[in-house]
């Protein structure tokens, strides 16, 4: 059966997380893969279940160590999925983690789909039947999130590029298919060298550019600019710290954008977010009062999304109301902080003042409500289609794997064309390239090539 044949792998901790990162591998090949890529001081004859092994992940290509890790194996059926599970624990950041994942995928695993570990746990009887619906919700939620993320403008640049690449492949496929399915028609005749040229010069170049963008990781210098706004002592700084800590983010203060504002990169529900921090200004107390709303204005214009923080344990001040007037209502979430303290602000008052703005209740102190806040930020970014100019190309690991695969097939197709291989072999290369691209764009309709043929050629008796 499908899920028993394939071994799956994924980074199990949130993307962008600092601290410990875990890669989980599940399936009957998990141990074989571990043997291929893990090297410890003393060779291991047989892995014991539930034991931590210290060693290095080795890139079998170069035979060089990538990172020091702790590796553990849980043999079936005593694991989360009831399959053989290998977990790799690393202290490294996302980049190293993802290159280790790539090594694991090359060693014979496939990237897990959203919710797939849990799905397997269920299918293998590890999870109670009564939880079936909860698992469905999980699959739907995760899938929904990634679909919306993919469709958003954030990765829009990548999407446009991959759609273009895909379309170019389909056009070539249509020409080749037409020449095979309609051999009597003169209009379908093709010249191999032209097509090979087109693949090399147009399509491959484009694919390689996107792959290169992965290496540059442009996203880590872009992201959605989020400003935390609010009056003094409303808890901005605690909220910022909570974000940095909760998300276990790669905290990267980027000094020098302006002298007053520091930027921190975090990921929230998979979205790269640039938190604009006014910490620098806060220290110079008194100046704030003078600059007042003017300063906030500058911040607000720089932001794609504003978190308007109010303090529920105190009444609203004039500052709060001024701020409300300044913010772009489309890009604002009202964050009601300090819910751990007795409430002074009534629900009605909040409702009548902030009307339809989305509201999230949190406690920066206890961390309560941050899950909802993250979700609200994700929803806002997705639904409002916040513009993030200039739109960066942001391939992630999944994209990069797919693109590299596509590039390999395209090269093959072009070589086979020149070497006079049969056209359906070339077509097979190209359609595998298309399949790889489909992994990114998610659209897979079988009629497209035929549609393209019929719009291009006048065929038939």
């Amino acid at each position: 059966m499908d899920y028993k044949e394939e071994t799956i792998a994924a980074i199990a901790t949130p993307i962008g997380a600092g601290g410990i990162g875990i890669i989980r591998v599940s399936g009957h090949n998990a141990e074989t893969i571990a043997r291929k890529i893990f090297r410890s001081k003393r060779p291991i004859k047989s892995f014991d279940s539930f034991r931590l092994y210290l060693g290095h992940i080795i890139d079998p290509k170069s035979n060089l160590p990538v990172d020091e890790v702790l590796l553990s194996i849980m043999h079936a059926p005593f694991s989360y999925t009831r399959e053989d599970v290998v977990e790799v624990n690393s202290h490294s950041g996302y980049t190293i983690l993802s290159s280790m994942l790539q090594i694991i995928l090359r060693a014979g695993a496939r990237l897990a789909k959203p919710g797939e570990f849990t799905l397997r746990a269920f299918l293998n009887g590890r999870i109670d039947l009564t939880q079936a619906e909860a698992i469905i919700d999980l699959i739907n939620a995760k899938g929904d999130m990634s679909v919306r993320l993919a469709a958003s403008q954030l990765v829009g640049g990548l999407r446009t590029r991959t759609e273009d690449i895909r379309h170019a492949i389909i056009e070539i496929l249509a020409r080749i298919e037409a020449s095979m399915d309609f051999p009597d028609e003169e209009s379908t005749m093709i010249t191999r060298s032209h097509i090979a040229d087109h693949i090399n010069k147009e399509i491959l170049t484009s694919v390689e550019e996107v792959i290169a963008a992965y290496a540059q990781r442009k996203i880590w210098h872009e992201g959605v600019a989020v400003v935390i706004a609010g009056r003094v002592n409303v808890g901005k700084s605690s909220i910022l710290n909570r974000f940095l800590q909760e998300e276990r983010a790669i905290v990267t203060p980027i000094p020098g954008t302006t002298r007053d504002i520091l930027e921190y990169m975090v990921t929230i529900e998979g979205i790269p977010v640039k938190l604009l921090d006014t910490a620098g200004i806060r220290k110079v107390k008194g100046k704030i009062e003078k600059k007042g709303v003017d300063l906030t204005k500058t911040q607000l214009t720089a932001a794609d999304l504003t978190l308007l923080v109010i303090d529920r344990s105190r009444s609203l001040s004039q500052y709060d109301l001024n701020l409300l007037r300044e913010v772009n209502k489309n890009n604002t979430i009202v964050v009601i902080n300090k819910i751990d303290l007795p409430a002074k602000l009534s629900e009605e008052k909040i409702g009548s003042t902030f009307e339809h703005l989305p509201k999230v209740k949190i406690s920066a102190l206890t961390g309560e409500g941050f899950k909802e806040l993250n979700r609200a930020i994700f929803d806002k970014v997705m639904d409002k289609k916040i513009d993030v100019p200039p739109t960066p190309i942001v391939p992630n690991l999944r994209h990069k794997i797919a693109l590299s695969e596509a590039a390999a097939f395209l090269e093959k197709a072009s070589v086979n064309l020149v070497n006079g291989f049969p056209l359906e072999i070339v077509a097979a290369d190209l359609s595998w390239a298309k399949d790889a691209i489909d992994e990114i764009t998610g659209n897979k309709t079988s009629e497209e090539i035929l549609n393209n043929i019929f719009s291009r050629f006048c065929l038939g008796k």
Partner: protein
Amino acid sequence: MSYYPKKYDIIVVGAGHAGCEAALAAARMGCSVLMMTIDLDGIARMPCSPSIGGVAKGQLVKEIDALGGEMAKVTDKTAIQYRLLNTKKGPAVQSSRTQNDKIRYHIAMKEALEKEPNLDIKQAMVEKLVVENNHLVGIEDQTGFGYQAPAVILSTGTFLSGLVHIGFTSIRAGRAGEFASYGLPESLRSLGFNLGRMKTGTPPRLKKSTIDFTRFAKQEGDENPRPFSLFTKEIKMPQIPCYIGYTNKKSHQIVRDNLERSALYGGKITGVPARYCPSMEDKIVRFSERDKHQIILEPEGIDTEEIYASGLGNSLPMDVQIPFVRSVEGLEEVEMMRPAYAIEYDYVDPLQLFPTLETKPIKGLYMAGQINGTSGYEEAAAQGIWAGINAALKIQKRPPFLLDRSEAYMAVMVDDLVTRGTEEPYRMFTSRAEYRLLLREDNAEQRLMEKGNELGLIDDETAKEMKKRQKKISAECHRIKNTVITPSKEVNDYLIKAGSAPIKNATPLDQILKRPELSYQDISTLDGHHKKKDERIARHVEIEVKYEGYIQRQLREVEKFKSLEKIKIPPEFDYTGVHGLSNELREKLSTIKPISLGQASRIPGITPAAISIIMIYLKKTGSLL
């Protein structure tokens, strides 16, 4: 109603290419079969082109042959030209095509039917299906006389509410000059079937002696024709050429000037036409930049003057058709014997079918051919044998005959029809088959003959011979991989002469054969002490070795594909109670009732998440272990 005293197992309605294969398969499997047709002289008629096979269609014919069907045999008996298409392109898209003598084709097929002991053939127009408790029990003819059978296969072609158009003249006809059935579609509607309307057409027939063939390029058939059928020992018919010519600006102007007088552009036609088979009007509107279109003159037979003018199809009135046809160089003086016409007909939405081609609403009712929204003799015949086999198996209480998309073109077609439906007349293309490299003409016997034997449609002797050939093929593949050839002057001279690079080290033969410029013939020469092999085996070995990597990859894909096919969804599975599926998907799944998770995954709009969800429910309800 009075009934004919004899009760049948299966009644086949319609004697076209689908009906003939269906009736023969069921009768040969031991069922008592009655075939009914409006006109006994119309059996296995070719109402459009006089040609069998073609790219992807040739594969279908070979598959029918490997399952013990009749089409390939009759084709060989009546073919007046053979052409292997795409010889320069590659093995998977190489297909056979013949030109056939239409009258001889009809006679040869009728003869095969008449010889079948379990088969009665009767001329009658079926007007009504007799159904009790959603089970089919029989049919009623135009005179109100009934025939009883627990299974009926409808293969009615273009006859359901058939309407022929020439200009603004519309005639009720199943084909020009033949009665159409207006009762049967009503009967189907009243049983709850959803019917749609399609359009097709046929070009004019021209009198040979009035054509100036010097203005056309001659197109000969293959010098060494290969028979279609594995059972054909010898090709006896004389071989006749076709002729290629072109329309011109003048022809296009005539059509353009009279567009609104055509049935197609004058608003007479509501049926959906096929994009791959455009009428002249469509070609001129949609591809206005072209100043010529190819036409092929194909003989309709040996004893007739009639010439099929492929490419001149239209729905124009007579006074336009004549000058239009005569505007073509070489046809200035031509006498048109039959005009071109368009025809509209009802089809039954194939989403109402199970993969056996039995209908979901009425048990025992099967449909095959154009009634399912397809086009083409070969597509029809393939569905015919499929439905005939399945109806017979049901009567005999045996498990159904279901091939999957990795096994046969016919399975690709059936799966497409019952899973995705069709918006236009469905024609087979090689690009529809994702495992195309595995679905070749040359390996059709390997793919299907054993199954034909199990069904009782292929005799043991033939099956045994096939197995022997397969053994020889794998032995030869093995030998080639394990034979090493050492570089010598003789070897390298030969390679250079063949346009290939010389070898420096000892090299296995399969590596040499993998070079695109070399053939199995070259390998045999290089490899001296090697006795001559059966041509069929040689071809097969060459393909298996040359494209090994690609074939292996497709085989791996097939493995993955099969894993989902194996997860069956019980027919009574209730999607309304499935949490987490959108209403739209629930509705689709409830209508289509996929038999496996694989089929479900191919329904348009189904996401991987939806598949996981169904899997979870299968597990929950105990259908998945």
